[in-house]
């Protein structure tokens, strides 16, 4: 006991400092989540009868499953678009002078500085019947009647990709910045072409950034209630809207809770796939 000050564990300070946040999470996140779980395990809206009825209802109903499927697919499409469009920007960022770098960062961050609602409304103006795209195509004589862009899956994917793009680009910029530029030169001097260098050296080493970006974009895209409902409209049903409908309009809270839990588990499953890929890639990048 007398020697305690000398052997005092320095990590205990860290734990103590984390306590306020941990308490905050416990009270305002874990507790409501448990309440949600509790509510979802009831068969009636008054939450008097215990049972798995809500989960059975969801998992045996082809319509509900198709809503879940289309939501997860939407996330995959948005993530793919963001990755394909975001990677070149991040790559470019590492190869230009500091002035251009500032401009690129500004362009990447700009969407984050305006609210999602404003960005989404801008897309309504762009994609509408008399919107920028249709007006341009019509004045060029390429199309006669306006294309239907708003209230389509295509419209939702494009709008979400723009809205969530910073979440993909920023981790990519960080990951690419960590790669030693000498590796490129080494690869070239050993006889690899630029494509081969990209696929065998740059891409594998940037995988942690790719995984982080994909996880963030995916999670943000599938839960983006505002953009999904404003661009997708009232007949394109994704999980957030389905949940809102059950909870708010129909006051069916147990079913809404069950939808939330199932959605949460589905997202966790996808995220854990990403994380596993990340762990594998670390081994790949190291060898």
């Amino acid at each position: 006991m007398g020697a305690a000050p000398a052997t005092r564990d320095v990590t205990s300070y860290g734990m103590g400092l984390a306590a306020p946040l941990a308490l905050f999470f416990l009270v305002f996140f874990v507790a409501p989540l448990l309440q949600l779980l509790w509510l979802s395990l009831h068969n009636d809206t008054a939450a008097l009868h215990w049972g798995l009825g809500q989960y059975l209802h969801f998992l045996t109903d082809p319509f509900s499953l198709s809503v879940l499927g289309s939501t997860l697919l939407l996330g995959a499409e948005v993530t793919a678009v963001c990755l394909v469009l975001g990677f070149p920007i991040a790559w470019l960022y590492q190869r230009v002078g500091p002035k251009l770098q500032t401009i690129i960062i500004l362009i990447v961050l700009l969407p984050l500085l305006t609210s999602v609602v404003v960005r989404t409304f801008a897309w309504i103006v762009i994609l509408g019947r008399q919107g920028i795209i249709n007006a341009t195509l019509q004045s060029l004589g390429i199309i006669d009647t306006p294309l239907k862009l708003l209230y389509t899956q295509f419209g939702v994917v494009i709008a979400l990709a723009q809205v969530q793009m910073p979440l993909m680009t920023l981790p990519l910029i960080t990951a690419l910045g960590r790669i030693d530029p000498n590796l490129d030169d080494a690869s070239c001097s050993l006889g690899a072409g630029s494509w081969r260098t990209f696929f065998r050296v740059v891409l594998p080493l940037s995988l942690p950034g790719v995984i982080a970006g994909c996880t963030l974009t995916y999670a943000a895209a599938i839960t983006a209630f505002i953009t999904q409902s404003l661009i997708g409209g009232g007949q394109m049903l994704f999980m957030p809207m389905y949940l809102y409908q059950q909870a708010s309009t129909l006051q069916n809270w147990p079913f809404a809770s069950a939808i939330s839990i199932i959605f949460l588990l589905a997202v966790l499953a996808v995220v854990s796939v990403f994380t596993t890929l990340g762990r594998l890639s670390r081994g790949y990048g190291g060898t």
Partner: protein
Amino acid sequence: MIMNRRSLMTTALTLGAMKAFPGLSYAQARPLVFATFTGSWEEAHKAVLVPAFRKANADAAMVLDPMLSVDQIAKVNAAKANPPIDVMLHDPGPALVAIGQDLVEPYPVEKSAYYKDLIAEAQEPMGPAPFFQVVGLTYNPEAVKTPPTSWADLWKPEFKGRVGITNLNSTLGTGWLVEIAKMRGGSEANVDPGFKAIEELKPNLAAVAANPGALATLFQQGQIDISPGNFNAIQILKARGVPVEFVAPKEGAIAFKTTIHIVKNSPNRELAFKLIEASLTPEVQTTLMNPPYLIVPTNSKVTMGGEIARVLAKDTAELKQKFVFQDWKKINEQRSAWIERFNREIKI
């Protein structure tokens, strides 16, 4: 008593917690809380109803806490014994839910000076209707040269790809479905003909908006030229210069009662009653009927004027004739099944 740092902190935290969560300490007197709707409703009530109430009641303290009907119900439900709201405002669907869950008190009709002057449809013993919301046809007069006259006009081939509707989440969407079902031989209990009618409307549908607000903005974008629409939502657009007009179809405009209720176990029961009385007076209803509010009055002593007299009704007799009221008790019984069916069947 020794004051050390620890006990000082504990005291400070306790006091802070009592300040942050007043319910912890003891039930205390609080001002009257009126949960109105957000947006133009809040503006109208802040500018007209609240001053009228305070003038009549010696400047009694009151708070407007705007929120959606469903949130009002959830909040009162969570604290039935000591509700955080004294007066609730509801559309017909949620009103029945609130009454069904035993959250509201019967209105003291015999004490009321104005209740008997309300038109019959507005006299609801569980909470009178101080206003009507009206749904009719809305259209863009620049694109639609001959004003529509009937719900059936939405199916005209000339409106191919120009019609907008909302899904059934809203009172507007559900009420409209019931109305077109009635037009084709259905009723509040049988909306099959309505679903068939929407099926036939598909070639004309340009958009199924997620809510009435989103629907109204589609006029602004030229995405749609004609749709079922809320009279008051259209006035807001018109005031901003969007080319859009409202017309009551010959089958009758759908009228929703917006009812106002005293919350059960309210600590401010008397003031709540006084606020509702204020909302029923001809003076308040007349002011709210005039621009910029254009809220349809329910007190038969109010003389109709302005835009409301022009497009809706010149007096109470005409109003009764031109408005259709729906049986929301019946609608609520099957509404969730309809929403489910709409989700599955209506894909454009």
